[in-house]
């Protein structure tokens, strides 16, 4: 049994896939997660549970289990920043034992960029080594130290990509390595520069990467031009063109800007749907999960 997830089945069936992201809180109130899940509705195939992107929050493992319990399929995110190979493999075994079937492997935001810059990092392994480790656990039933795993480990392996990372040659080389290591789906960073994304996708197609993995293009509704400027200035992995910021500015007051942000997002999704090599979208909201439901509702109209 290689896979046992709805996401894997949808990828295999060629359906257009919609995934979303859930940002847990520094909270023990599971009700908050359940409320966020219910706001997503039925249009979502799987929900990523972020692994402490900005500092300590409820863990991605615990959040993923809440989703499993609620009948929603999680994508369990694992960053290599905070755990060494012992802890990561141990958590992976536990996650699989408790019903988690999708894993997203990433290095994670460096702790210097989180609310805990004074903490030590681990980075025992990098994201590509994590992908390869999960694949080894699944396909060969052995841990990195050679210990045999009892029972099935039927997880779907995902990774991330940043279409805006330059130079393109290095970007694609890294993407190709992730897929070669075992990434069966790729969720991209939020795309705002659609033309740059198309150039990236074309390179991925040329190297037959899109045939060997499912690209889920990241999209994110912007709330207004100020948010857009903050994201552009603080996250090197996001490229927001001036034309988008101008469009938001011209929209008018905050309410109008929010609406325009949603329009831009919907336009981007419609363009993505037509692109050869895009198998779906990944809805990012930076913790504003209600905005995801607005997008889903608008798409279904």
């Amino acid at each position, binding site marked *: 049994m290689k896979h046992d997830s709805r996401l894997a089945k949808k990828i295999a069936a060629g359906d257009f896939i919609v995934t979303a992201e859930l940002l847990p809180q520094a909270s023990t109130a599971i009700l908050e997660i359940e409320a966020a899940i219910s706001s997503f509705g039925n249009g979502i195939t799987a929900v990523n549970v972020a692994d402490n992107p900005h500092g300590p929050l409820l863990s991605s493992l615990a959040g993923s289990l809440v989703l499993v319990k609620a009948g929603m399929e999680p994508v369990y995110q694992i960053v*290599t*920043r905070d755990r060494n*190979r012992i802890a990561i493999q141990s958590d992976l075994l536990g996650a699989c034992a408790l019903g988690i079937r999708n894993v997203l492997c990433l*290095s994670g*935001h*460096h702790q*210097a*960029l989180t609310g805990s810059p004074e903490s030590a*990092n681990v*980075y*025992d*392994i*990098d*994201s*590509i*080594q994590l992908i*390869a*480790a999960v694949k080894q656990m699944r396909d060969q039933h052995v841990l*990195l130290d050679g210990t045999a795993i009892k029972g099935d480990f039927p997880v779907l392996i995902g990774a*991330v*990509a*940043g279409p*805006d*990372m*330059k*130079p393109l040659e*290095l970007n694609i*080389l*890294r993407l*190709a*390595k992730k897929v*070669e*290591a075992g990434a069966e789906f790729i969720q991209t*960073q939020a795309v705002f520069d659609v033309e740059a994304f198309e150039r990236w996708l074309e390179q991925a197609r040329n190297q037959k990467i899109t045939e060997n993995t499912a690209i889920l293009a990241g999209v994110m509704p912007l709330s207004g031009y100020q948010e857009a400027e903050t994201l552009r200035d603080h996250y*090197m*992995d996001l490229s927001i063109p001036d034309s988008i910021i101008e469009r938001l500015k011209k929209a008018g007051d905050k309410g109008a800007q929010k609406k325009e942000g949603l329009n831009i997002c919907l336009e981007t999704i419609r363009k993505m749907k037509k692109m050869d090599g895009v198998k779906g979208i990944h809805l990012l909201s930076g913790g504003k999960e209600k905005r995801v439901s607005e997008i889903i509702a608008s798409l279904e109209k």
Partner: protein
Amino acid sequence: MIVAERKTIPELVDILEGHKKILVLGCGTCVTVCLAGGEREVSIISSALRIASRAKNLSFEIEELTIERQCDNVFIEEAAKAVERNDVVLSLGCGAGVQAIAERYPAKPVYAGLNTSFIGILEERGIWAEKCAACGACVLDQYGGICPVTRCAKHMLNGPCGGSREDRCEVRPDRPCGWQLIYQRLKSIGQLDRLKRIVPPKNWAPSLGGGCRVIVREDHRI
């Protein structure tokens, strides 16, 4: 070389408060070159401590001395008499120097006057940068002579992270992304194919993962 920085005078005063006869001991090797603990810094720090002592009525009596290498017993001997006639030693050597002095004089308090920072080089006047993490299993041959363990904030061995952009590192935007340098270097020497290989997890045992490191050279043991 080993690069270090001076602790601040208030920090040193805190460390030394309660002691009277203090030997400020400099080192003539790495920390002299990086302008942290050589003869010149011994003089400056001693003067500052004397001023602080007068201002706070601490009655410090400070002697100054700089030896060639604090991490070498042959040179440490040169400090024996000065160490004996003082109550404590404020070492301006690196962490190895401080501990070598402390081991040689077990009955004498020895304090570190520097923060030992890294193995690096002088990049330009007044700027020192880390180049080696002393991981114990050098991979420079695979990366065009640029170390991903040291120069990537995440020690990534298979390529850059998503925070690499326009030659800058997301963690330190004032510094180049180590991976962009590796890519450019391998491209210019015709070895870009090296980057296509999936590098397995690194064995960190020769690094700090194995506890205090010791090298035994049987051919040099008598």
